[in-house]
């Protein structure tokens, strides 16, 4: 996973795509000599209680799995991730909203949602994009997503 990678909504990134399994992602990272660790989130008490495995690379890309199915990729501050519409990590949210007028702020969870299939998280001090998240379509609907029937 090199720097300045392209992020494509509902598809993945240059290197990681949503049709890959957990083992395939690990092997791809190892072959590219990318250092990573695996984080386990048990989601105890959630309804239903589906644990997540998260592969986190040393250049702040996180790949989320539920029951070995990849559902979300997050490109953080040192990933230099760039969306196919030009929005990238480090850009001001004001400029991003000019590029994609569908961006709306979710006041409850404090992130920006695009109807084009991605989320933006913003650093509260600088108002710049700290994270870009893409996901599978099931994530768009809370009821479908949190039932994990797509697993």
């Amino acid at each position, binding site marked *: 996973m090199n720097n300045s990678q392209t992020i494509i909504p509902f598809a993945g990134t240059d290197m990681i795509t949503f049709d890959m399994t957990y083992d395939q992602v690990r092997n791809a990272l190892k072959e590219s000599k990318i250092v990573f660790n695996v984080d386990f989130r048990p989601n105890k008490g959630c309804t239903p209680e589906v644990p997540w495995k998260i592969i986190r690379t040393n250049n702040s890309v996180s790949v989320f799995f539920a029951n070995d199915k990849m559902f979300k990729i997050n490109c953080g501050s040192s990933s230099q991730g760039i969306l196919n519409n030009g929005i990238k990590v480090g850009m001001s949210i004001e400029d991003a909203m000019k590029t994609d007028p569908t961006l709306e702020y979710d006041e409850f969870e404090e992130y920006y949602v695009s109807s084009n299939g991605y989320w933006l998280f913003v650093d*509260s001090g600088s108002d710049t994009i700290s994270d870009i998240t893409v996901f599978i379509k099931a994530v768009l609907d809370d009821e479908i997503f949190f039932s994990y029937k797509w697993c």
Partner: protein
Amino acid sequence: MIASKPDFSKAYIAANELLATGKELDTFPFPIKPLIKANTDVSLCSFEKAKRKFNANIKAWGSESAVLQEYQGQAIIFYNKEKTGNPKPRIKFNLQLFASSGPISMTGNVSEKSISDHREYFFGKSVHEIEKYLNRRGYQTIIRPSKNPDSKAAVIKVLNSTHERNITQVLVSPGSKRHGEVPYVKISTDNGRYKVINSRPEEYKTDGKEKAKLFFRRYW
């Protein structure tokens, strides 16, 4: 510790509801402790125990019989065994006291004032403890993880909101990169959002654009 003055008119209605529906009431007169344990988060402590274990003179707070106090978010009824007697004639008084405690009324309603007055109630509680509290107030809920990729926060989603039972969801965060690693609880209702933050204002990072009403820990 904060002395809190009960709202007796509200408490009287809530206490009567409990009397009518409490599963623990199968005899009369009934023991108060199981009822309080099953329906509230309020702790009980006798004047004598407070003196023996903590060297606290409860009578100094101005009551010879019973008093409700809040300590680090935990409501405690201190009662004087000598005055309550056996069978306990002060049951009605105690019911009124505990029914008026905590931010959520017995009918499930919260307001800006009730959250502000009882903000410490949420501090130090896990998402499951807060969910149980909601359930005791009639809320049907599920828990789901936060969507924020680095957050360990969880969201309690309410499935049966009404105009009276007005909470729609609650986010419980142990701290986040965005807000400076301070724990907070965000309560969304049908007419506003409130964030109860377990820190001083200067420790909390914000862009100043938050629409939620912020309530910080009070220090005395």
